[in-house]
């Protein structure tokens, strides 16, 4: 059909590669998404403390990771972290290997990138909190800490969920850059396959469809979460 040749897909070796690539992509995305959310929470929380030097650190972190290309960040992480000389001895082979694999470097770099974006999203969610709500909580005797967890955080979470969806889908797509530092994820194996078969267009179409499906799962899950967390008067509530 249309002169496309997918006969190579019947080769179990290529099937294996694709499957491995998909699993690694998912693992990388899941790991860095979780870490990004945690970094985002910790960072946004730190900003609420209004401590001068802490603000400066978080601010600097956000600026650096938000305003530089994620590909550069990943290369930077790879060439600095993996050559730090941290080595461990693999107990099974007895060989000395770098402590931080390419996969680990990619996870760290993506986590920091996503984390910086998440800090921004959570911060703006907290900042758009009406002052009157905070005043009501204070007048009911809430301490700063319990006010944050019982009142501000749940409301802010609903406000920043759409922004978080964007960040997570963005992060998922950015995992493809890990192929550049030899992480064997989907994009990496795609390259291997078309180098082997010269079926570049066919491979790209397939990979594109796989990415669309995987990212759709993320957006679908987030939409469900948004609907579940919605309350009348805010966001998707009605």
């Amino acid at each position, binding site marked *: 059909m249309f002169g496309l040749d997918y006969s190579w897909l019947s080769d179990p070796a290529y099937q294996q590669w694709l499957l491995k690539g998909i699993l690694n992509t998912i693992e990388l995305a899941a790991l860095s998404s979780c870490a990004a959310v945690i970094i985002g929470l910790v960072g946004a929380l730190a900003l609420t403390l209004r401590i001068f030097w802490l603000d400066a650190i978080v601010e600097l972190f956000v600026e650096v990771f938000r305003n530089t290309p994620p590909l550069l960040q990943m290369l930077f992480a790879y060439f600095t972290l993996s050559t730090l000389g941290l080595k461990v001895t693999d107990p099974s082979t007895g060989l000395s290997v770098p402590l931080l694999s390419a996969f680990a470097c990619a996870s760290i770099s993506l986590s920091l990138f996503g984390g910086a974006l998440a800090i921004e999203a959570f911060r703006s969610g907290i900042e758009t909190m009406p002052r009157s709500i905070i*005043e009501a909580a204070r*007048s*009911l*005797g809430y301490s700063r800490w319990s006010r944050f967890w019982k009142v501000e955080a749940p409301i802010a979470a609903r406000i920043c969920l759409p922004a978080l969806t964007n960040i997570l889908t963005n992060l998922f797509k950015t995992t493809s850059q890990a192929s550049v530092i030899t992480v064997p994820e989907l994009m990496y194996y795609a390259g291997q396959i078309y180098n082997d078969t010269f079926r570049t267009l066919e491979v790209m179409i397939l990979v594109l469809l796989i990415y669309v499906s995987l990212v759709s799962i993320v957006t679908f899950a987030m939409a469900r979460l948004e609907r579940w967390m919605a309350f009348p*008067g*805010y966001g998707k509530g009605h």
Partner: protein
Amino acid sequence: MNRSDALIEIDGIRKSFGTFEVLKGISLNVSKGEAVCIIGPSGSGKSTILRCINGLIPINEGFIRVGNHRVHEMRSEKAMRPLRHQVAMVFQQYNLFPHRTALENIMMAPIQVLGHDKAEVEDRARKLLAKVRLSEKADSYPGQLSGGQQQRVAIARALAMQPDIILFDEVTAALDPETVKEVLFTIRQLVEEGLTCVLVTHEMKFAREVSHRVCFTDRGMIVESAPPAEFFDNPQDPRTREFLGQVL
């Protein structure tokens, strides 16, 4: 009135925002069971007085005592917790928590702040909802309630803290005339039950009928304070006369 008998004792408080002095020496005593209305032009510092009483904003100078709490000496939110337990506040914009239902709004603070037993609090909350005549709205979110209904939930939320004093800050100002009645009905009931109330209001008729004393504020000072009959029929200060002339 003997000062030490007063439940709320305010003496010479001053408050500035930046260089702008909002309160210029306010003194006011409120005894137990008394309902005091504060009226006055916009920007004269009425809301600021209420916020000082429950420590929402710190004062620059002066003395505030509520029960046993010396409010002007309190610094942290934690230290203010017993004060906030004793003094509840209801706001013009209701300020309900939008992510919780009416019932949950009422139950939250008694459980989370006062550590009261959940079952007992739910029982209390349902009784309060019945009292403000909103039992059927227990599971509605604030976004699904009318302004008047939200305000009555807010009053129930304040009552659930079992306060000795409630501060009302223009609680009917955002409501349409029909719903104003429902809310005023609820407040009148509380005053009749002997709850100590400080009310900032624009409802002159209500102030006259319900309060024991009316204070008139102008540019950060209380210029006149008298029982309602005297205050409305025979105002002493020219500024009071002028204001009443405009609004009555």
